[in-house]
């Protein structure tokens, strides 16, 4: 069998999908928050692989830089700042609640599968052989020609979020009835 005959992208997809699913389950099921965070990083990396398979190299890079690089570091920072020992044995959710959560999740999944099966006909209109629609040039053109205002608004949003995060994290520390020994 020659190398070209191998469905290489299929193999990559199946392996990545399996890793992503296991990592997602670890995020939800494991008790240690650090393990949750590391599993989420693995999951995000798997999504970056999916983006590469879907011909979106720019988004794959952004996924790794922004999510795995910035957001998850923030998560790990907060986990490390908090008292982990107290959190290793948190009050567990009630058995009833957990059963109902799984039940609701199963119902939700079947609803989505149903919707996908109903809308299968829309996939027939695909196979636009438009190579390079996910390149940086095309995404940048789309973003800066048609969505420039949204782009600027996103930067304002990030600024507001940054200021807000600082204010929220500080204000509570400086209240007199805070249980901090010293600010």
């Amino acid at each position, binding site marked *: 069998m020659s190398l070209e005959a191998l*469905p290489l*992208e*299929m193999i990559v*997809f199946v392996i990545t*999908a399996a890793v992503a699913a296991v990592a*997602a*389950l670890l*995020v*939800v099921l494991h008790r240690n*928050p650090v393990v*949750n*965070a590391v599993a989420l990083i693995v999951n995000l990396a798997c*999504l970056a692989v*999916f983006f590469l*398979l*879907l011909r*979106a190299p*720019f*988004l794959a890079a*952004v996924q790794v830089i*922004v999510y795995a690089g910035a*957001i998850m570091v*923030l*998560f790990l920072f*907060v986990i490390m700042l*908090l*008292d982990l020992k107290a*959190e290793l044995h*948190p*009050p*567990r*959710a009630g058995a009833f*609640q957990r059963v*109902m959560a*799984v039940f*609701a*999740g*199963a119902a*939700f*999944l079947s609803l989505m599968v149903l919707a*996908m099966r109903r809308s299968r006909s829309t996939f027939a209109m*695909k196979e*636009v052989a438009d190579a390079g*629609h996910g390149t940086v040039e095309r*995404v940048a*053109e*789309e973003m800066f020609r*048609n*969505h420039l205002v*949204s782009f600027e608004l*996103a930067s304002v*949003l*990030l600024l*507001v*979020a940054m200021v*807000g995060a*600082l204010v*929220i994290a500080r204000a*509570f520390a400086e209240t007199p009835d805070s*249980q901090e020994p010293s600010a």
Partner: protein
Amino acid sequence: MRPPTEWYLAIAALLFTIGVVGVLARRNAIVIFMSIELMLNAVNLTLVAYADSFGASDAQVFVFFVMAVAAAEAAVGLAIILAIFRRRRSTSVDDVNLLKW
């Protein structure tokens, strides 16, 4: 031979459902946050799969904005969790019931 769009939609639906179950079943606020990130990423995967299917670049711009909003949300949310932890010495959502009826 590329994987069909349906496969990507299926794995995205699975990841989203796992995220939903995580939000519903877990009590730790940080883990609930991570489950929300899981759901946001599942939606991003759906958008990129459709973008590839239809050969459109708009969806990728939209995914970019979703990532920006997710970053903002994570920053503010983690600041709130930090502030609550300073007061209550807990990140369990059961201890934060001031606005609950």
